[in-house]
């Protein structure tokens, strides 16, 4: 039974989860910080340049990111240490590069979309710019930022091209260091679908598909729910109250307004 588990899909599942976790650990601080920089601090002169570079990064096919990771590992092997090969570390860094644009864009857009009076709430109360970002804007936008991160996690979970060139192998087992090779579900599916030897192996491949699909469905649902939560909070501030305000202003015949004017002049 123990052999069944270890030889089965477990190393691929563990590899995928570790891969996601490590990639996201690299990508979140850089992505969120860059998003905040672009939304709040970036000079108007430089913003189009950064936006162009970001769009470029977002548009690069994942196979090219994988090739870049592979080139980096070859470079490091040649110039730094002969023990460095395509490995878990290179894969996670390459995947972090792949998902960075998602996190940066979501963070930036969520901050840019905030109404002016929300953005300046903290500033008007005497908060410094950093306090305003950390204590108001980020908590206010947390659901949207997290939904972007979850989509990035989904991308890390399902991408095959990047890891194929940077360290994943079919039967490596659970990775025991950052420099070791590893297994992951997307590559396992690719490998089985192109080269299965028995019906049992094919069934394992289908099992891997169902697990990967379940992970992705779970992540997308979570992201959707968080986005909805953010949208409701956003509406409370930007739609409901101003709507009332516009009604109040635009219709001079509203009974309440007349009453109001009457009371005021009394």
């Amino acid at each position, binding site marked *: 039974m123990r052999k069944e588990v270890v030889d089965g899909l477990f190393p691929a599942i563990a590899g995928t989860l570790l891969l996601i976790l490590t990639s996201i650990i690299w990508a979140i601080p850089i992505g969120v910080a860059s998003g905040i920089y672009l939304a709040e601090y970036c000079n*108007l002169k430089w913003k189009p340049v950064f936006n162009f570079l970001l769009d470029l990064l977002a548009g690069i096919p994942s196979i090219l990111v994988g090739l870049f990771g592979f080139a980096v590992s070859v470079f490091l092997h040649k110039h730094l240490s002969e023990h460095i090969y395509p490995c878990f570390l290179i894969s996670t860094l390459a995947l972090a590069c792949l998902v960075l644009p998602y996190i940066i864009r979501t963070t930036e857009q969520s901050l840019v979309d905030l*109404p*002016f*009076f*929300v*953005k*300046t*709430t*903290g*500033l*008007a*109360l*005497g*908060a*410094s710019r950093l*306090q305003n970002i950390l*204590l*108001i804007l980020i*908590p*206010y936008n947390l659901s949207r930022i997290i939904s972007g991160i979850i989509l990035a996690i989904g991308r890390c979970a399902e991408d095959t091209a990047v890891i194929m060139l940077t360290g994943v192998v079919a039967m490596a087992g659970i990775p025991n260091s950052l420099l070791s090779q590893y297994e992951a579900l997307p590559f396992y599916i690719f490998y089985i679908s192109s080269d299965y030897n028995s019906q049992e192996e094919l069934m394992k491949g289908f099992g891997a598909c169902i697990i990967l699909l379940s992970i992705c469905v779970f992540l997308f649902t979570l992201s959707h729910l968080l986005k909805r939560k953010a949208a409701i*909070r956003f509406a*409370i*501030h930007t739609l409901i*109250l*101003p709507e*009332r*305000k516009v009604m*109040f*202003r635009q219709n001079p015949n509203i009974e*309440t*307004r007349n*009453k*109001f*004017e009457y*009371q*005021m*002049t009394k």
Partner: protein
Amino acid sequence: MKKIKIRIEGLNFFYKKKPVLKGLKGEVEEKAITTIIGPSGVGKTTFLMVLNRLYESIPGCMVEGKVEIELNDRYIDVHRLPVTTLRKKVGMVFQVPNPLPMSIFKNVAFPMRLSGIKDKKSIKDKVKQSLKDAFLWDEVKDRLNDSALELSGGQQQRLCIARAMIMQPEVLLLDEPTSSLDMEAALKIAELLKSLRGKCTLIVVSHYTSLTRRISDSVLTLKDGCLEI
């Protein structure tokens, strides 16, 4: 003779190089209610944002001229004060109520948190006093831990005033504080503003001339980017 709290001289404001306020000149009395009226788009909100330098968060704005505030018997140009210090002295309440997505208590205590005050008892006492001053205590005393977003529009606006008043600012700017509220809520705000007279200098931007007449000590009219008394 009443003391002058704010002196403005030759104030020009440009947005993307276009003039919005031209050569503004005027004075605001201390601990009185001064109302600024004028047609839409004339620069009333801009004028308020110059007083606490909130315009600095909008790219493309430029200011010329003198805006001095009296602090400890000395007139200091607002641009010479550290911006966070200035904004603690010159609070602002916006047109649309903007409670933070946290509890009622945390909302009101937020400026104290920003100032690094950690003494729980003092925070509790100040929050209570501030809510009482804003005529909100009786309505929320049993649900201080509920989300501030669950309050009605008028209650949210009074919460924002309580929040702005907790650090006892010397000047409070109010940008059309009643325009998004119904009659009943607007009346409560007007009463609240009247009760704040004598506690701090209030500058209110308003469209409603009746409100202006009822609560103001002086009225300034902004017309074509110029201030008339």
